[in-house]
Protein backbone atom coordinates (compact mmCIF):
# COMPACT_ATOMS: atom_id res chain seq x y z
CA UNK A 1 0.00 0.00 0.00
CA UNK A 2 1.58 3.27 -1.04
CA UNK A 3 0.70 6.86 -0.32
CA UNK A 4 0.17 7.29 -4.05
CA UNK A 5 -2.35 4.50 -4.03
CA UNK A 6 -4.14 6.00 -1.03
CA UNK A 7 -4.30 9.44 -2.66
CA UNK A 8 -5.64 7.88 -5.82
CA UNK A 9 -8.38 6.18 -3.84
CA UNK A 10 -9.29 9.40 -2.05
CA UNK A 11 -9.61 11.28 -5.33
CA UNK A 12 -11.78 8.52 -6.79
CA UNK A 13 -14.00 8.57 -3.73
CA UNK A 14 -14.36 12.33 -4.16
CA UNK A 15 -15.75 11.74 -7.64
CA UNK A 16 -12.65 12.33 -9.77
CA UNK A 17 -13.31 10.22 -12.85
CA UNK A 18 -9.84 10.61 -14.31
CA UNK A 19 -8.35 9.09 -11.17
CA UNK A 20 -10.39 5.97 -11.77
CA UNK A 21 -9.01 6.05 -15.30
CA UNK A 22 -5.49 6.06 -13.82
CA UNK A 23 -6.32 3.11 -11.62
CA UNK A 24 -7.60 1.35 -14.72
CA UNK A 25 -4.40 2.12 -16.62
CA UNK A 26 -2.28 0.76 -13.78
CA UNK A 27 -4.19 -2.43 -13.16
CA UNK A 28 -5.70 -3.48 -16.50
CA UNK A 29 -2.61 -5.33 -17.70
CA UNK A 30 -2.22 -7.11 -14.39
CA UNK A 31 -5.76 -8.32 -14.25
CA UNK A 32 -5.93 -9.40 -17.87
CA UNK A 33 -2.68 -11.27 -18.16
CA UNK A 34 -2.29 -12.63 -14.65
CA UNK A 35 -5.83 -13.23 -13.48
CA UNK A 36 -8.42 -13.25 -16.22
CA UNK A 37 -6.86 -14.65 -19.41
CA UNK A 38 -5.37 -17.69 -17.61
CA UNK A 39 -8.85 -18.50 -16.33
CA UNK A 40 -11.24 -17.65 -19.14
CA UNK A 41 -9.01 -17.23 -22.19
CA UNK A 42 -8.59 -14.24 -24.43
CA UNK A 43 -11.95 -14.60 -26.21
CA UNK A 44 -13.95 -13.76 -23.08
CA UNK A 45 -11.32 -11.77 -21.21
CA UNK A 46 -12.56 -8.30 -22.13
CA UNK A 47 -16.10 -9.09 -20.98
CA UNK A 48 -14.88 -10.33 -17.61
CA UNK A 49 -12.54 -7.35 -17.29
CA UNK A 50 -15.38 -4.91 -17.95
CA UNK A 51 -17.58 -6.65 -15.38
CA UNK A 52 -14.72 -6.49 -12.88
CA UNK A 53 -14.26 -2.73 -13.21
CA UNK A 54 -17.98 -2.02 -13.16
CA UNK A 55 -18.33 -3.91 -9.90
CA UNK A 56 -15.25 -2.14 -8.55
CA UNK A 57 -16.72 1.24 -9.49
CA UNK A 58 -19.92 0.46 -7.60
CA UNK A 59 -18.05 -0.65 -4.51
CA UNK A 60 -15.01 1.60 -4.39
CA UNK A 61 -16.81 4.30 -2.43
CA UNK A 62 -17.11 1.89 0.48
CA UNK A 63 -13.52 0.59 0.14
CA UNK A 64 -11.47 0.91 3.35
CA UNK A 65 -7.81 0.14 3.81
CA UNK A 66 -7.58 -3.22 5.54
CA UNK A 67 -4.09 -4.38 4.78
CA UNK A 68 -4.57 -5.09 1.10
CA UNK A 69 -3.99 -2.79 -1.80
CA UNK A 70 -6.28 -1.89 -4.63
CA UNK A 71 -4.67 -4.39 -6.98
CA UNK A 72 -5.40 -7.32 -4.68
CA UNK A 73 -8.90 -6.07 -4.13
CA UNK A 74 -9.46 -5.83 -7.89
CA UNK A 75 -7.83 -9.23 -8.45
CA UNK A 76 -10.25 -10.80 -5.96
CA UNK A 77 -13.17 -9.30 -7.87
CA UNK A 78 -11.69 -10.45 -11.18
CA UNK A 79 -11.24 -14.04 -9.89
CA UNK A 80 -14.84 -14.10 -8.71
CA UNK A 81 -16.08 -12.69 -12.01
CA UNK A 82 -14.01 -15.22 -13.98
CA UNK A 83 -15.48 -17.99 -11.85
CA UNK A 84 -19.04 -16.74 -12.39
CA UNK A 85 -18.37 -16.42 -16.09
CA UNK A 86 -17.07 -19.99 -16.21
CA UNK A 87 -20.02 -21.31 -14.23
CA UNK A 88 -22.43 -19.82 -16.72
CA UNK A 89 -20.69 -21.91 -19.34
CA UNK A 90 -20.07 -25.00 -17.24
CA UNK A 91 -20.77 -25.61 -13.53
CA UNK A 92 -17.57 -27.64 -13.19
CA UNK A 93 -15.43 -24.57 -13.80
CA UNK A 94 -13.68 -24.94 -10.42
CA UNK A 95 -11.51 -27.55 -12.12
CA UNK A 96 -9.74 -24.73 -13.89
CA UNK A 97 -8.31 -23.60 -10.58
CA UNK A 98 -6.19 -26.76 -10.68
CA UNK A 99 -4.10 -25.31 -13.45
CA UNK A 100 -0.73 -24.62 -11.83
CA UNK A 101 -0.60 -20.91 -11.16
CA UNK A 102 2.67 -19.18 -11.69
CA UNK A 103 0.76 -16.02 -12.38
CA UNK A 104 -0.45 -14.92 -8.98
CA UNK A 105 -0.79 -11.22 -8.43
CA UNK A 106 2.08 -9.87 -6.33
CA UNK A 107 1.13 -8.69 -2.88
CA UNK A 108 1.57 -5.04 -3.60
CA UNK A 109 -0.21 -2.01 -4.92
CA UNK A 110 -0.07 -1.26 -8.65
CA UNK A 111 2.93 1.02 -8.38
CA UNK A 112 5.49 1.67 -11.09
CA UNK A 113 7.82 -0.83 -9.41
CA UNK A 114 5.13 -3.49 -9.40
CA UNK A 115 4.50 -2.75 -13.05
CA UNK A 116 8.16 -3.45 -13.80
CA UNK A 117 7.95 -6.74 -11.89
CA UNK A 118 4.90 -7.72 -13.88
CA UNK A 119 6.56 -6.94 -17.16
CA UNK A 120 9.64 -8.89 -16.13
CA UNK A 121 7.48 -11.85 -15.09
CA UNK A 122 5.70 -11.83 -18.41
CA UNK A 123 8.97 -11.43 -20.30
CA UNK A 124 10.45 -14.52 -18.64
CA UNK A 125 7.27 -16.45 -19.17
CA UNK A 126 7.19 -15.51 -22.83
CA UNK A 127 10.83 -16.50 -23.20
CA UNK A 128 10.21 -19.90 -21.71
CA UNK A 129 7.15 -20.40 -23.93
CA UNK A 130 9.24 -19.62 -27.01
CA UNK A 131 11.96 -22.04 -25.88
CA UNK A 132 9.35 -24.74 -25.42
CA UNK A 133 7.85 -24.06 -28.83
CA UNK A 134 11.29 -24.31 -30.36
CA UNK A 135 11.61 -27.80 -28.96
CA UNK A 136 8.40 -29.00 -30.68
CA UNK A 137 7.83 -30.22 -34.20
CA UNK A 138 7.57 -27.14 -36.45
CA UNK A 139 3.95 -27.92 -37.40
CA UNK A 140 2.91 -28.11 -33.76
CA UNK A 141 4.81 -24.94 -32.97
CA UNK A 142 3.22 -23.23 -35.95
CA UNK A 143 -0.27 -24.34 -34.92
CA UNK A 144 0.20 -23.02 -31.38
CA UNK A 145 1.80 -19.78 -32.53
CA UNK A 146 -0.88 -18.96 -35.12
CA UNK A 147 -3.91 -19.86 -33.04
CA UNK A 148 -2.90 -18.94 -29.48
CA UNK A 149 -0.11 -16.38 -29.72
CA UNK A 150 -1.37 -14.50 -32.77
CA UNK A 151 -5.07 -15.19 -32.20
CA UNK A 152 -5.86 -16.11 -35.80
CA UNK A 153 -9.11 -17.87 -36.67
CA UNK A 154 -9.31 -21.67 -37.00
CA UNK A 155 -10.02 -21.46 -40.70
CA UNK A 156 -7.07 -19.16 -41.28
CA UNK A 157 -4.77 -21.46 -39.33
CA UNK A 158 -6.04 -24.52 -41.20
CA UNK A 159 -5.45 -22.78 -44.50
CA UNK A 160 -1.92 -21.80 -43.53
CA UNK A 161 -1.14 -25.40 -42.55
CA UNK A 162 -2.93 -26.69 -45.68
CA UNK A 163 -5.33 -28.94 -43.78
CA UNK A 164 -9.08 -29.07 -43.20
CA UNK A 165 -10.35 -27.20 -40.15
CA UNK A 166 -11.28 -30.35 -38.14
CA UNK A 167 -7.80 -31.68 -38.85
CA UNK A 168 -6.32 -28.43 -37.62
CA UNK A 169 -8.27 -28.90 -34.37
CA UNK A 170 -6.63 -32.28 -33.91
CA UNK A 171 -3.19 -30.87 -34.69
CA UNK A 172 -3.72 -28.09 -32.17
CA UNK A 173 -4.85 -30.55 -29.52
CA UNK A 174 -1.84 -32.82 -30.09
CA UNK A 175 0.37 -29.73 -30.10
CA UNK A 176 -0.87 -28.67 -26.64
CA UNK A 177 -0.20 -32.17 -25.29
CA UNK A 178 3.30 -32.10 -26.73
CA UNK A 179 3.85 -28.62 -25.32
CA UNK A 180 2.74 -29.75 -21.85
CA UNK A 181 5.18 -32.65 -21.88
CA UNK A 182 8.01 -30.39 -23.02
CA UNK A 183 7.09 -27.69 -20.49
CA UNK A 184 7.26 -30.13 -17.57
CA UNK A 185 10.79 -31.13 -18.40
CA UNK A 186 13.25 -29.86 -15.81
Amino acid at each position, binding site marked *: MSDDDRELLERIQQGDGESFGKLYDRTRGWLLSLVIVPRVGRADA*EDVLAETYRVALEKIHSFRWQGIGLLHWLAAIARRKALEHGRRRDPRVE*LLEDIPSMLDVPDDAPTAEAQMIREETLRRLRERVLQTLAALHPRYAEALRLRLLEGRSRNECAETLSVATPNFDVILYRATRAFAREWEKP
Partner: protein
Amino acid sequence: MGETVSEHKRFDESPATAEELQAARRLADAVEGGMAVAADVEALGVARLLETVSKPGVSDNLAARRLRNELTARAGGRPRLRSARSIVPIAAAVAGVAFLSVFFWRSPARTSDGVLAARQETARAAVVAVATSWAANDALSRRLAAVSEQQWRSRLTTMIDRGRFEQLAAESAQGTVADRAQPVPRATLALPTPGGTS
Protein backbone atom coordinates in the same frame (compact mmCIF):
# COMPACT_ATOMS: atom_id res chain seq x y z
CA MET B 1 17.94 -36.84 -23.57
CA GLY B 2 18.33 -36.80 -27.34
CA GLU B 3 15.67 -39.48 -27.67
CA THR B 4 13.27 -37.48 -25.51
CA VAL B 5 13.70 -34.34 -27.60
CA SER B 6 13.23 -36.22 -30.82
CA GLU B 7 10.13 -37.87 -29.33
CA HIS B 8 8.62 -34.44 -28.56
CA LYS B 9 9.59 -33.19 -31.97
CA ARG B 10 7.77 -36.05 -33.62
CA PHE B 11 4.70 -35.10 -35.59
CA ASP B 12 1.90 -37.57 -34.96
CA GLU B 13 0.36 -38.44 -38.30
CA SER B 14 -1.72 -41.34 -37.08
CA PRO B 15 -5.49 -41.08 -37.59
CA ALA B 16 -7.26 -39.42 -34.69
CA THR B 17 -9.37 -41.62 -32.45
CA ALA B 18 -12.97 -40.73 -31.66
CA GLU B 19 -11.94 -39.56 -28.18
CA GLU B 20 -9.17 -37.45 -29.62
CA LEU B 21 -11.53 -35.87 -32.13
CA GLN B 22 -13.92 -35.01 -29.32
CA ALA B 23 -11.14 -33.58 -27.15
CA ALA B 24 -9.85 -31.55 -30.11
CA ARG B 25 -13.29 -30.15 -30.76
CA ARG B 26 -13.80 -29.21 -27.11
CA LEU B 27 -10.45 -27.46 -26.98
CA ALA B 28 -11.33 -25.55 -30.14
CA ASP B 29 -14.63 -24.48 -28.55
CA ALA B 30 -12.89 -23.43 -25.35
CA VAL B 31 -10.43 -21.25 -27.24
CA GLU B 32 -13.36 -19.70 -29.11
CA GLY B 33 -14.98 -18.84 -25.78
CA GLY B 34 -17.21 -21.88 -25.41
CA MET B 35 -17.47 -24.66 -22.83
CA ALA B 36 -14.06 -24.32 -21.29
CA VAL B 37 -14.14 -27.01 -18.65
CA ALA B 38 -15.41 -29.69 -20.98
CA ALA B 39 -11.97 -29.53 -22.55
CA ASP B 40 -8.92 -31.47 -21.43
CA VAL B 41 -7.51 -29.53 -18.48
CA GLU B 42 -3.89 -29.95 -19.47
CA ALA B 43 -4.52 -28.86 -23.05
CA LEU B 44 -6.61 -25.96 -21.85
CA GLY B 45 -3.89 -24.93 -19.40
CA VAL B 46 -1.40 -24.72 -22.25
CA ALA B 47 -3.87 -22.71 -24.34
CA ARG B 48 -4.41 -20.26 -21.49
CA LEU B 49 -0.68 -19.97 -20.88
CA LEU B 50 0.04 -19.10 -24.49
CA GLU B 51 -2.85 -16.66 -24.62
CA THR B 52 -1.47 -15.04 -21.47
CA VAL B 53 1.89 -14.26 -23.03
CA SER B 54 0.39 -13.21 -26.36
CA LYS B 55 0.42 -9.54 -27.23
CA PRO B 56 -2.95 -7.76 -27.22
CA GLY B 57 -4.35 -7.01 -30.66
CA VAL B 58 -5.73 -3.78 -32.10
CA SER B 59 -9.28 -4.75 -31.19
CA ASP B 60 -8.16 -5.24 -27.57
CA ASN B 61 -6.74 -1.71 -27.54
CA LEU B 62 -9.97 -0.27 -28.90
CA ALA B 63 -11.99 -2.17 -26.32
CA ALA B 64 -9.61 -0.93 -23.63
CA ARG B 65 -10.11 2.70 -24.66
CA ARG B 66 -13.88 2.34 -24.81
CA LEU B 67 -14.01 0.76 -21.38
CA ARG B 68 -11.73 3.43 -19.93
CA ASN B 69 -13.92 6.23 -21.30
CA GLU B 70 -17.02 4.61 -19.89
CA LEU B 71 -15.46 4.09 -16.47
CA THR B 72 -14.03 7.60 -16.13
CA ALA B 73 -17.39 9.08 -17.17
CA ARG B 74 -19.25 7.00 -14.61
CA ALA B 75 -16.70 7.59 -11.87
CA GLY B 76 -16.88 11.34 -12.57
CA GLY B 77 -20.58 11.32 -11.80
CA ARG B 78 -21.78 12.08 -15.29
CA PRO B 79 -25.18 10.65 -16.23
CA ARG B 80 -24.86 6.94 -16.43
CA LEU B 81 -26.99 3.89 -16.76
CA ARG B 82 -27.83 2.30 -13.45
CA SER B 83 -28.02 -1.40 -13.13
CA ALA B 84 -31.48 -2.92 -12.95
CA ARG B 85 -30.72 -4.05 -9.42
CA SER B 86 -30.25 -0.47 -8.24
CA ILE B 87 -33.22 0.89 -10.21
CA VAL B 88 -35.78 -1.51 -8.75
CA PRO B 89 -35.77 -0.13 -5.17
CA ILE B 90 -35.84 3.47 -6.44
CA ALA B 91 -38.76 2.73 -8.74
CA ALA B 92 -40.56 0.95 -5.92
CA ALA B 93 -40.01 3.91 -3.60
CA VAL B 94 -41.30 6.39 -6.19
CA ALA B 95 -44.36 4.23 -6.86
CA GLY B 96 -44.99 3.96 -3.12
CA VAL B 97 -44.80 7.72 -2.59
CA ALA B 98 -47.11 8.31 -5.55
CA PHE B 99 -49.61 5.77 -4.20
CA LEU B 100 -49.55 7.24 -0.71
CA SER B 101 -49.99 10.77 -2.09
CA VAL B 102 -53.10 9.75 -3.98
CA PHE B 103 -54.35 7.78 -1.01
CA PHE B 104 -53.97 10.63 1.47
CA TRP B 105 -55.36 13.17 -0.98
CA ARG B 106 -58.57 11.17 -1.21
CA SER B 107 -58.63 10.16 2.41
CA PRO B 108 -60.93 12.08 4.82
CA ALA B 109 -58.13 11.87 7.35
CA ARG B 110 -56.31 14.57 5.43
CA THR B 111 -58.09 17.52 7.12
CA SER B 112 -55.49 19.94 8.29
CA ASP B 113 -56.86 23.45 8.90
CA GLY B 114 -54.92 25.08 6.10
CA VAL B 115 -55.94 22.56 3.50
CA LEU B 116 -59.53 22.55 4.67
CA ALA B 117 -59.74 26.36 4.58
CA ALA B 118 -58.22 26.43 1.12
CA ARG B 119 -60.65 23.85 -0.16
CA GLN B 120 -63.60 25.68 1.44
CA GLU B 121 -62.51 28.94 -0.13
CA THR B 122 -62.23 27.28 -3.50
CA ALA B 123 -65.66 25.77 -3.16
CA ARG B 124 -67.17 29.11 -2.09
CA ALA B 125 -65.60 30.91 -5.03
CA ALA B 126 -67.00 28.26 -7.34
CA VAL B 127 -70.52 28.66 -5.89
CA VAL B 128 -70.33 32.47 -6.18
CA ALA B 129 -69.18 32.17 -9.75
CA VAL B 130 -72.03 29.85 -10.61
CA ALA B 131 -74.64 32.03 -8.80
CA THR B 132 -73.39 35.17 -10.51
CA SER B 133 -73.56 33.41 -13.75
CA TRP B 134 -77.13 32.27 -13.09
CA ALA B 135 -78.21 35.79 -12.08
CA ALA B 136 -76.64 37.29 -15.13
CA ASN B 137 -78.24 34.71 -17.31
CA ASP B 138 -81.65 35.33 -15.72
CA ALA B 139 -81.50 39.08 -16.35
CA LEU B 140 -80.34 38.51 -19.85
CA SER B 141 -83.15 36.05 -20.44
CA ARG B 142 -85.73 38.47 -19.18
CA ARG B 143 -84.39 41.23 -21.39
CA LEU B 144 -84.39 38.94 -24.37
CA ALA B 145 -87.95 37.86 -23.62
CA ALA B 146 -89.12 41.46 -23.32
CA VAL B 147 -87.45 42.44 -26.56
CA SER B 148 -88.86 39.41 -28.21
CA GLU B 149 -92.38 40.13 -26.96
CA GLN B 150 -92.20 43.76 -28.04
CA GLN B 151 -90.95 42.74 -31.43
CA TRP B 152 -93.67 40.13 -31.72
CA ARG B 153 -96.39 42.63 -30.76
CA SER B 154 -95.04 45.18 -33.13
CA ARG B 155 -94.91 42.65 -35.86
CA LEU B 156 -98.46 41.46 -35.10
CA THR B 157 -99.77 45.02 -35.15
CA THR B 158 -98.10 45.61 -38.43
CA MET B 159 -99.70 42.51 -39.83
CA ILE B 160 -103.17 43.58 -38.58
CA ASP B 161 -102.73 47.11 -39.87
CA ARG B 162 -101.63 45.81 -43.20
CA GLY B 163 -104.65 43.50 -43.33
CA ARG B 164 -107.05 46.32 -42.53
CA PHE B 165 -105.34 48.60 -45.01
CA GLU B 166 -105.66 46.07 -47.77
CA GLN B 167 -109.31 45.44 -46.91
CA LEU B 168 -110.10 49.13 -46.95
CA ALA B 169 -108.30 49.59 -50.21
CA ALA B 170 -110.32 46.81 -51.78
CA GLU B 171 -113.64 48.14 -50.50
CA SER B 172 -112.78 51.61 -51.63
CA ALA B 173 -112.10 50.35 -55.10
CA GLN B 174 -115.51 48.62 -55.17
CA GLY B 175 -117.37 51.52 -53.61
CA THR B 176 -118.48 49.49 -50.68
CA VAL B 177 -116.60 51.09 -48.00
CA ALA B 178 -118.01 50.45 -44.66
CA ASP B 179 -120.69 52.85 -43.39
CA ARG B 180 -118.67 54.49 -40.84
CA ALA B 181 -116.21 55.38 -43.47
CA GLN B 182 -118.71 56.52 -46.01
CA PRO B 183 -119.48 60.28 -45.98
CA VAL B 184 -123.11 61.13 -45.45
CA PRO B 185 -124.66 63.17 -48.34
CA ARG B 186 -125.37 66.64 -47.24
CA ALA B 187 -128.94 66.72 -48.92
CA THR B 188 -130.24 63.95 -46.78
CA LEU B 189 -129.34 65.63 -43.66
CA ALA B 190 -132.10 67.41 -41.77
CA LEU B 191 -130.41 70.42 -40.83
CA PRO B 192 -132.17 72.75 -38.37
CA THR B 193 -133.17 75.97 -39.93
CA PRO B 194 -132.68 79.23 -38.31
CA GLY B 195 -135.90 80.50 -36.46
CA GLY B 196 -137.19 77.00 -35.73
CA THR B 197 -139.50 76.52 -38.92
CA SER B 198 -138.85 73.04 -40.61
